[in-house]
């Protein structure tokens, strides 16, 4: 009898274990939703993501369902060509969203998805800040297909749906031991973590107060490419069989320098959020293009301004102290990566230094407001009604001629109606007085005052530099996050580590 060669048995056992493992492999279901809120056109900013996720769908063998976009011909073509293996559940409408959520709930309730099965839900669309007040949603609202913000001042035209239905799915999955992963890659997606349950994995592309970012495709005419330079694009790009959600999150989180704050609901992730998110948030504000949350963050009243600056200075100092403590703890433990804390501190100092300069111009602007008020009181003491209810600088910057013309038109139209014509006439008289006051003040404001106003205007005009400062902080904070996460990584398992693609 031939003796079995020593390596044959292990190979046989290995083959057996693969075959048993395969036979016991549970159901793997993937839902990819989003692509809403985009302006009219053929393409969307989500096209790169469609390609990346399509690659996962086609190669992974996961049972996939897609409800994405609607109304953008090239994006829809991409969905057909790149996601051919997925069931297309139609455009990302409210009805389709609700139907799919109900479908998942039914699968969980009826046991179609059972213990050990995997369910991955991904939301990739435009997102809104969480509402305020007692009726606010737990998560936040996201944009649906066939709806564009037609007027950017009030964003009319956008249709949205809240993500609170995910809570029922989370509870059912936890109860039935179905492995659940939810990815929300929209703006303000950190609100997803309000649904935290320690039996499911939740990942967001940003914090509750930050935008998230997409990488647009670059067309070279004959070739279009989209290099993954943001958290979301890198995450989707890395989605390969065998990788865990935790691994994907950590590997993608250090990508790029966009001012975001991707989150994960593992113990380690939640602890880091608790420690640094609140401190870091103000430094992720910037002025750039139509975004002005850097300058808009300042109060507009001189008497409250110093109070605010004092709070900012104190918070800055506390954050630096915390980072210094972490750095010293790392030094005692003889760990590498101390320079990450130093670099973040330097980036924060650089941002704060810029803020201090900007604050000085605001401080001077408030001085000018005092000067204007003094002129009002001294020169127009009997016309208090014409100036006392207004912010002085805004009063001077108003185009009163257009208001005068407007109300003269109303007075002319209503001249037969005694009450209204009298009211419009009084309005025109007051506006004319205000114009006289405004012109007088502008002509008599000191040169020093005018220079101060000019300095603030220039500071605002140049404040786009805050994007760069904020990006540097974000890049350094991502390195600190990674160092802290890896240092504190528990040996225990967690739902994000257990969720292997």
């Amino acid at each position, binding site marked *: 009898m031939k003796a079995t060669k020593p390596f044959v048995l292990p190979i046989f056992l290995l083959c057996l274990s693969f075959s048993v493992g395969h036979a016991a492999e549970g159901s793997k279901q993937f839902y990819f939703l989003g692509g809403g809120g985009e302006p009219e056109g053929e393409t969307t900013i989500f096209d790169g993501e469609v390609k990346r996720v399509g690659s996962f769908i086609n190669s992974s063998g996961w049972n996939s369902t897609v409800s994405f976009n609607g109304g953008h011909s090239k994006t829809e073509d991409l969905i057909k060509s790149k996601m051919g293996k997925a069931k297309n559940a139609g455009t990302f409408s409210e009805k389709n969203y609700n139907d799919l959520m109900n479908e998942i709930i039914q699968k969980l309730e009826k046991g179609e998805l059972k213990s050990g099965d995997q369910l991955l839900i991904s939301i990739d669309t435009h997102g809104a800040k969480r509402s305020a007040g007692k009726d606010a949603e737990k998560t936040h609202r996201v944009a649906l297909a066939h709806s564009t913000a037609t007027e950017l001042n009030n964003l*009319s035209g956008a249709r949205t749906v809240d993500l609170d239905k995910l809570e029922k799915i989370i509870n059912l999955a936890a109860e039935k031991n179905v492995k659940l992963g939810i990815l929300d890659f929209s703006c303000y997606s950190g609100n997803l973590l309000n649904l935290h349950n320690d039996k499911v994995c939740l990942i967001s592309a940003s914090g509750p107060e930050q*935008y998230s970012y997409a990488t647009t495709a670059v067309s070279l005419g004959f070739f279009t490419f989209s290099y993954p330079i943001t958290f979301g694009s890198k995450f989707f790009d890395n989605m390969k069989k065998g990788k865990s959600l935790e691994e994907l999150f950590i590997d993608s989180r250090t990508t790029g320098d966009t001012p975001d704050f991707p989150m994960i609901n593992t113990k380690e992730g939640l602890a880091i959020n608790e420690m640094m998110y609140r401190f870091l948030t103000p430094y992720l504000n910037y002025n750039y293009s139509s975004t002005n949350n850097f300058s808009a963050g300042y109060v507009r*009243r001189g008497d409250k301004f110093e109070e605010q600056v004092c709070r900012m200075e104190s918070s800055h100092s506390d954050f630096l102290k915390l980072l210094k403590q972490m750095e010293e703890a790392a030094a005692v433990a003889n760990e590498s990566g101390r320079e990450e804390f130093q670099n973040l501190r330097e980036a924060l100092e650089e941002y704060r230094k810029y803020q201090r300069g900007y604050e000085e111009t605001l401080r001077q602007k408030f001085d000018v407001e005092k000067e204007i008020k003094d002129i009002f009181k001294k020169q127009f003491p009997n016309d208090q009604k014409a100036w006392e209810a207004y912010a002085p600088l805004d009063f001077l910057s108003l185009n009163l001629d257009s208001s005068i013309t407007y109300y003269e038109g109303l007075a002319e139209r209503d001249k037969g109606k005694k009450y209204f014509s009298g009211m419009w006439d009084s309005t025109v008289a007051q506006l004319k007085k205000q114009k006289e006051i405004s012109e007088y003040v502008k002509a008599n404001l000191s040169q020093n005052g005018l220079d101060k106003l000019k300095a603030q205007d220039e500071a605002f005009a140049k404040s786009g530099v805050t994007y760069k400062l904020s990006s540097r902080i974000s890049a350094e904070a991502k390195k600190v996050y990674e160092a802290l996460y890896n240092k504190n990584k528990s040996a225990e398992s967690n739902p994000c580590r257990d969720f292997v693609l």
Partner: protein
Amino acid sequence: MMKILLLLISFPVFAQDFTGCGEYKFKGILKYDEKAPLKMSYLVREGTGSQMTFSLVNKSDVITLAPFIDKPSQFKAKIVKLMDGTKGELRTPMEIGLRFPDPMSASDTGIEKIKSVKCQ
């Protein structure tokens, strides 16, 4: 390498923020309104599903707010009567200033209570 980033823009918040009579901070826009008693209304979240409409009921308030007709503005004012759904009245605006619309911020337009007062 060419690097292009696009912000994922935010969308308006759908919230009712009237929590009883009081002094509020208003962020919205003054518009001519044929149906309003004095033909002028202050609109908050104009054009959205949660627009709030505040009528001006005092002639002096119409005159005071006139420089800001059709301009995004903000101020403090009183609400002394309970609102009827999304409709209400505002009185005695003060600290009136311009508002710089921020399409990225949900708090760009809305009302925020500063202090409570008894309803009349």
